[in-house]
C-alpha cells in the first residue's frame, strides 16, 4: 500500500517533468506560466489516475471468482466516513486547482475584450502583481510592460488570409514580425466570420469576432520562427489559413520595419486563393491530386497586397511531379 503510494508519487513526479516536452518551444513568457500549470495538473492527474486505477486493477486480478465459486461477495453497501472523505478530497483538490489556475491567469495578464482600461493605470497593475508569487516569467511580463512602450500591431483575419499592419510605420505584411522581450498589443479584427488567433509556441489563443475590435497582449521571449494558425473553424480553406511568426531581436526587428517600409506593396502568395484558382482551372495541379471533388465554396478573398510578402507561388510543374 505505502509502497504503491510512493511509486505512484514518483511516477506522477516523472510525468509532471515529462509534460514540458509535449509542447512546442516556450516562445512567450505566458507559455512558461502555462507549462508550469500544465505540469502541476499532469502530476496531480497522474497521481489520481494511478490512485484509482491501482485498486481497480488489484481487484480485477485478485478478486476474481474462481471457476466453481458460486457465492456472493460481502454485502457491504456503504461507509459514511469513507463517502465523506472521498467527497471532501476532490472538493479540496478542484478548489485548489481553480485557485492556482486563477493565479496563473492573472499573472499572464492577457487582456480580453473590454479590459484595456487597466493598462492606462500602471499603479493598479503594480499592486496586482506585487504579490509574493512572483516567478521569472511573470517578471519578464512585468519588465516588458514597464521598460519600453508597448508595440501596437493590427491584425486582420479574413477568409482566408492574415494581414498584419504596423500603424506607426504604416506597413503591412503577411508574416508577423515581433520584437523579443517586448510587450506586444494586438488589435484583432475580422472582415467576415469568426477566426481564431492562435500561436501554439506562445500557448495563446483569442477568437476574433466580426464587428468587434478585440485587444490582446503577449510577451515573446524567444527568437525564432513559429506558426500562427486559425483556431476557429472559418469555412472551406480553414486549414490553410496559417502564417509565420518571426520573433527577432529588437534591432533586427527595427531593421525589418525599415526595409519593409521602403518596399512598394505587392500581392502576396495566398494558399486559399491559389488552391481556388487551381480547382477552377481544368489543367490545375490540385484538381488532379484530389480523389473526390467537392462542392461550391465561398470564393477566397483576393491575395492581400502588402509591403512584405515572403512567400511566392509554388511552381506548378514541381507540384505536378511530387
Amino acid at each position, binding site marked *: 500500500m505505502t509502497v504503491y503510494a510512493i511509486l505512484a508519487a514518483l511516477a506522477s513526479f516523472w510525468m509532471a517533468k515529462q509534460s514540458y516536452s509535449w*509542447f512546442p518551444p516556450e516562445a512567450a513568457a505566458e507559455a512558461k506560466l502555462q507549462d508550469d500549470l500544465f505540469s502541476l495538473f499532469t502530476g496531480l492527474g497522474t497521481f489520481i489516475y494511478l490512485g484509482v486505477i491501482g485498486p*481497480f486493477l488489484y481487484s480485477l486480478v485478485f478478486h476474481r471468482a474462481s471457476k466453481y465459486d458460486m457465492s456472493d461477495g460481502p454485502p457491504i453497501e456503504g461507509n459514511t466516513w469513507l463517502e465523506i472523505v472521498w467527497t471532501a478530497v476532490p472538493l479540496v483538490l478542484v478548489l485548489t486547482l481553480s485557485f492556482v489556475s486563477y493565479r496563473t491567469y492573472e499573472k499572464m495578464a492577457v487582456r480580453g475584450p473590454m479590459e484595456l482600461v487597466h493598462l492606462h493605470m500602471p499603479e493598479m497593475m503594480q499592486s496586482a502583481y506585487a504579490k509574493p508569487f512572483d516567478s521569472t516569467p511573470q517578471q519578464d511580463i512585468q519588465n516588458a510592460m514597464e521598460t519600453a512602450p508597448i508595440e501596437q500591431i493590427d491584425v486582420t483575419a479574413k477568409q482566408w488570409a492574415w494581414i498584419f499592419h504596423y500603424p506607426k510605420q504604416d506597413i503591412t505584411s503577411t508574416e508577423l514580425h515581433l520584437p523579443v522581450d517586448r510587450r506586444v498589443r494586438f488589435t484583432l479584427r475580422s472582415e467576415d466570420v469568426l477566426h481564431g488567433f492562435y500561436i501554439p509556441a506562445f500557448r495563446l489563443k483569442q477568437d476574433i469576432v*466580426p464587428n468587434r475590435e478585440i485587444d490582446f497582449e503577449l510577451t515573446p521571449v524567444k527568437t525564432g520562427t513559429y506558426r500562427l494558425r486559425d483556431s476557429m473553424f472559418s469555412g472551406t480553406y480553414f486549414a490553410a489559413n496559417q502564417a509565420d511568426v518571426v520573433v527577432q531581436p529588437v534591432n533586427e526587428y527595427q531593421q525589418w520595419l525599415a526595409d519593409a517600409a521602403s518596399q512598394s506593396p505587392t500581392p502576396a502568395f495566398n494558399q486559399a486563393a491559389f488552391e481556388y484558382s487551381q480547382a477552377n482551372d481544368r489543367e490545375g495541379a490540385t484538381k488532379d491530386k484530389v480523389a473526390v471533388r467537392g462542392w461550391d465554396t465561398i470564393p477566397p478573398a483576393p491575395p492581400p497586397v502588402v509591403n512584405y510578402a515572403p512567400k511566392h507561388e509554388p511552381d506548378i510543374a514541381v507540384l505536378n511531379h511530387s
Partner: protein
Amino acid sequence: MTNISIDAPEVVRGQPYPGAPDNWKRFFTFSTDHKVIGIQYIVTSFVFFLIGGLLSMVMRGELITPEADLVDRTVYNALFTMHGSIMLFMWTFPVLVGLGNYLVPLMIGARDMAFPRLNAVSFWMIPVVGILMLASFLVPGGASQSGWWAYPPVSLQNPTGHLINGQVLWILAVAISGVSSIMGAVNFVTTIFRMRAPGMTWFKTPAFVWAVLGAQLIQLYGLPALTGGAVMLLLDITIGTSFFAPERGGNPILYQHFFWFYSHPAVYVMILPAFGMFSEILPVHARKPLFGYRVIAASSILITVVSGVVWVHHMFASATPAWMRILFMVTSMLVAIPSGIKVFGWVATIWGGKIRFTTPMLFALGGISNWLFAGITGIFLASVPIDIHVNNTYFVVGHFHYVLYGAIVMGIYAGIYHWFPKMTGRMYYEGLGKLHFALTYLGTALTFLPMHPAGLMGMPRRVASYDLEFAYWNVLASLGGFLLGLSTLPFILNMVSSWIRGDKVGNNPWRAYGLEWLTSSPPTVENFEETPIVVSRPYGYGSNEPLVGNVPNPGLTEFPESFTQKTTS
C-alpha cells in the same frame, strides 16, 4: 424453478398487442409496446452508428497524410459535420433512449411507459431525422459544412444560393430530433415519477433509473434553448433576420450561448445513462451490492443541476470577459465531484467481490477506466490558462472521443450484452464478445490517445490538411480508426447469429437482483403477470433478502442452470 410468468404461453412473449405479428415483422409496425419501441430505437441507431463510422474512416483516410488529397476541402468539412451530427443525433441519443425505453418500465415494475402512443411517435421521428441528414448529401452544394456546432456566420454563408441547402436540412433535422427528445423526456419523467411499483421508494429505485431521470430532466430544461437558437438561425438564413449575422448588426456570440447552454449538459444526457449501466452491471458480475448506492443515485441529480451552469467553458477563447472565465472555471471543475463519487463507488463495488469477466463486465470495466482518463483531461480543459492553449485543438478531440467512444459507446455495448438475454431469450457468444471487447479497447486507445499529443503541439481541429510535424500521431490515429471500424464486425455477427440461434436462457441468467429479471425472457406483453410489490433495495447480494414480497424470487438465492453453464465453461 418457479417464476411469476412461468405459465405464460410461448406465443405471447414479446408480442406487442394481441394479434400482432409475433416475429421480426413486429419491429416494422407502429407498435406502442415500450419493448418493441426500445428495440426499434436500438437497431435503427446502430445502422447510423455504422454510417457515422464510415464517414470517420474517410476522414481518417484523409488525415493519414498531411495534404488534403483524398477528398476536397469542402467534402472534408461536410464529412466532419455529418459525422459529428449523425453520431450524436442519430446514434448516441437514440440508442440510449432505446435502452431506457426498454429497461425503465421493466425496472420499475410498470406495464409500459406513461404515454405509449407518444412514445411511438417519438421513435418514428428518428428515421425522418436520419433521412433528412443523409439527403443533405444529395442537394446542390452538398451537406452542411459548418460543424455540428453550426456557428454563425459560417453557417449563414451559402455559396450555392439555393434555399434548400445542406444547412437548412441540417437545422430541420436537428429541430425534429429536438421535438422527439422533448416528447421522450416528458414520457420518461412522468413514467419514473408516477409508475413505480408499490413499495419502490426513491431509494429503492435502481441507479439506472435515477440516471435516466437526471438525463431526461436536462432535456427538459436544455432543449428549448437549443431549439430556440436553431429557429433563430433558420430565420437568419432563410428570411434574412439579423439575430446572429454580423453584417446586419447581429451577434454571433449570442448563438454560442444558446447552443452551449444545451449542448454542454447534453454530454451528461449521454453519459448519465452509461453511468447508470455501469452501476447496474458491476454489482451483478462482481456479486456485491452497489457501494454507496444512495450517493451514486443522488449524484446523478447533482450532475443534472451543476452541468446546467458550466456552458461558458466552451467559450473561454470567445470574447468572454475575465470574470466569466473564472466563474465558469470553478463551476466546471465542481462537476468532477459527483462524477468522482461514482467512480469511487464503482471501485469499492468490485473491491473484494467475486468478479466474473463476462463481456458486459469487460465493457463496463473498460468504460470506467476510459472515463477516469477522460474525466481527468476534462479538469485540464476546465482550467482557463490550459484551455486557452488547447481548446479547438486535437487535445479536445481526443478528450471528447474518450468520453464518447471510450465511456459512452463502451457503456452502450456493456448494456446491450448484459440485457441481450432478457431482450431475446437467448445468450450471445462469449468468445465473439470478448474479441469485440479487445478490438474496441485497443482501437479506442490507438485512435484517441495520439490525438492528445497532437493537440498539445498545436494541431487545430477540423482541418483537412496539417503541417508535417503532426504526421506521426495522425498515422497512429488513422490506423486505430480503421481498427475501430473492424471491431464492429464481431459485434454484428454475434448479435445477428445469437438472436437467431443462440442458446436459450432462463429468465435470470446472470442471477441479477432487479425487477426486470423476475419476468420471462423476453418479457410478456404487459411485462408482469402480477404487479410486483417491492420490499427491499436492488443489488442485495450476500444478504439473501427477497426483492419483492408477493412473488417468489427465482434465481436470487440459487443459481439458474444457464448461468453455471454459460460463464464457467
